[in-house]
């Protein structure tokens, strides 16, 4: 769940990012505006984000409060029906989206920061540093994330969204590091990087002002993939009971639907929305990513 084989092309063998000058930007906008994948993907992600942000404001009771009749199918009053105890599934869904976004942003964010930092340093510094970081990356890469997480999280006393995200972030960065490294490696040989050195610029300034902006589209795409990956991992952890002990998330909803026999009792409205929410969110992020790829990568524009 770490990584989607969506962009191996971009990640490993992919062409170096194209220069993005003023013309590129306007061209990008042009393609962005007429790229259905990008539009649909962004639309759905934003709609879900909006639901997660705004939705809870319209719900006066907490998501776990017994508000209604038990085991009700969706109705005008309870849009997604109620649980076996009469909790409003819509309320849970909306709050769940929130924490799903939180886990994604936090976990994906941490992984992104670690991954890009490692990738940049390795790709830019080269030599022994690269060698060591590369080894480190490979080691973490080979370790199966979820299994590591299970072992680690199992020993934790207090499980919250933040801790969960932290752990996810700290284990799922390696492929991003590798991708960023290979990109940085190719960008670091660009002449303007040497020129910046000759202009008396410090390494970190070169990384942040010369290299990073040139792979910004690439970085955005990495972040999106990490974001989606973090959400899926978190859902997996939640599902096996290693989720935040006292909260709502889409994964926990799925867990409790299963624990309370929603399948056997035919309460489809309990286990379909959380899974569908995750799939929709992560799926549209991936589609958005292809859209971005097509916008930024001229090779893919035709076809």
């Amino acid at each position, binding site marked *: 769940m770490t990584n989607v084989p969506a962009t191996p092309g971009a990640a490993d063998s992919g062409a170096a990012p194209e220069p993005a000058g003023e013309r590129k930007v306007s061209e990008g906008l042009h393609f962005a505006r007429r790229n259905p994948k990008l539009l649909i993907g962004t639309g759905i992600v934003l709609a879900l984000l909006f639901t997660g942000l705004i939705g809870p404001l319209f719900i006066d009771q907490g998501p776990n409060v017994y508000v209604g009749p038990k*085991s009700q199918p969706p109705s005008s009053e309870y849009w997604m029906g109620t649980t076996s*105890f009469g909790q409003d599934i819509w309320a849970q869904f909306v709050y769940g989206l929130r924490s799903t976004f939180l886990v994604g942003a936090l976990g994906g964010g941490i992984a992104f920061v670690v991954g890009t930092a490692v990738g940049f340093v390795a790709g830019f510094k080269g030599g022994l540093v690269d060698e060591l970081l590369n080894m480190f990356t490979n080691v973490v890469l080979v370790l199966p994330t979820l299994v590591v997480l299970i072992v680690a999280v199992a020993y934790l006393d207090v499980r919250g969204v933040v801790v969960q995200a932290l752990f996810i972030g700290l284990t799922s960065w390696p492929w991003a590091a590798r991708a960023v490294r290979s990109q940085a490696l190719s960008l670091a040989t660009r002449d303007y990087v040497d020129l910046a050195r000759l202009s008396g610029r410090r390494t970190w300034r070169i990384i942040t002002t010369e290299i990073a902006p040139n792979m910004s589209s690439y970085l955005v795409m990495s972040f999106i993939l990490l974001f989606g990956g973090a959400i899926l991992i978190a859902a997996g952890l939640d599902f096996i009971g290693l989720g935040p002990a006292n909260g709502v998330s889409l994964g926990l909803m799925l867990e409790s639907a299963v624990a309370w026999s929603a399948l056997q009792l035919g309460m489809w409205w309990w286990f379909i929305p959380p899974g569908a929410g995750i799939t929709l969110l992560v799926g549209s992020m991936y589609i958005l990513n292809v859209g971005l790829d097509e916008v930024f990568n001229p090779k893919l524009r035709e076809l």
Partner: protein
Amino acid sequence: SSEGGDSGGSEGYPRDETLYTTGTAWGPPVNWNPIMRGQYAVGTFGLAYEPLFHYDPEENEYVHWLAESDEWTDETTHVITLREGMTWSDGEPIVAQDVVTTIELGQKDVSYSNIWNFIEGVEATGDREVTVTFSESRPQEWMNWAYSNPIVPDHIWADKDQQQLTDDPNEEPVGSGPYVYETHADDRMVWSRNDDWWGTEALGLEMQPTYIVDIVNASNEVTMNMISNNEVDLSNNFLPGIDQMIDGQAITSYYDGPPYMQSANTAWLVLNHDREPMNDVEFRKALAHSVDMSAIIDGPYSNLVEAANPTGLLPQWDAYIDHELVAEEGYTYNADEAVALLEDAGYTDQDGDGFIDTPDGDPIELTLQVPSGWTDWMEAARVIAENAQEVGINLEAEFPDHDLLVEDRNSGEYDLVVNNDRQLSNTPWTYYDYLFQLPLRDQQTTVNFGRYENEEAWDLVEELAAVPADDVEAAAEITSKIQEIQLAELPAIPLWYNGLWSQQTNTTWTNWPSDQGNPGYATMWDGWFELGAVRTLAEIELAE
């Protein structure tokens, strides 16, 4: 451990000769060592090994099982005579020495070592006669042991050292009971009928299923599915939503309507008396009044359980409950009363955060812990916390890991927990022992988690232990006194009776115990065969 057996075979066990059960085992069977309480495969004790006595909670009497008769020759001497002509499943006769050996194993480190605190000696005074002498007369506790512990064959167990006792998985159990080991796999334990069982003749019990396949508990939805597909005959696990499937025809439980299940134990709200304000009886009372049990029973449990009596004693122990006293001193859900109680005792909101503070003005912030993953309890804890907040007590539900909770609970590092460690037994002494046992230790591993100290109550409990096993009246007299203290002091708050979860399909096997004049217990739980559940196996009938 081995997979696969020689019979059964690829064609499987004939459906009409096999009883499929589930819900008791939570892990693969790995161990058939009846001394390893709590670890052995389902049926090891009950189907393969048997105790001297059974206890019938309905009638509140002991039933002779391996023992043919018994007699207290004086207060500290118990003479037990075994039945004649019984054999172990390997053909050896069952003799007095087997009992002696079993009891003497208690001198090593086994779960029942504590009986040697009051046993003086045990002797085979005849081929089938065992005499147990006591240093201290504790018949309630002794009989509790006598019916709830298996007798093992001397010729196999006498020479085992400590290591073997605890580690030996005893893969080929040689027992006395109606079933013998057939095979096992990670997800099942298969027993086959012992056609030479002594009980067929002696008790007239003819075990119906040739095979019993006990399936390791998977998840609720798996079990629900198996029930609806008639893949399992008896399920002994809490299945949320099962009330929607029990129809009295294809799927039944003991009662046709709520609470569906018989009661098996009491879930207590345990308060830590070492901490403020739980050490204040007024606060405890207010808290007791604040809990809306009907919300819990109606909510997470969908009426599968019943609210507990204020004494916490199970319905089977009705004879020990002082109903007059309960009517007078008992409490029911009454939020206003709770508020009033708090106010009278000086608990008011002084800092204006909407929650009461101690009379000294210190804010009160309490947590109620139940193990994470215990979904029904988690839901219940949420309700309790909400109820408490409604009367102004700042109580939050928290779901730590089970082990962590146990550790904190044992060492007294908690505010409130829910606990139901004690089961139905031959005597309410087990419950009072649980509530009042003294002295307190650093670690309270099995009883008195609340660290409640009341010498008077504990003396009464000790007195109760000394009451002859069948003297209900004398016992009731003492329990009434205990209850007086209990209701006045509320050391722990009884919540609900956890059910003896049991749902049966009637497609293959019928005539399950029910309230329609067919008493008994349909369960494979450890400790319940001796309470009569094993008879159910003889009483069920093949469906037409």
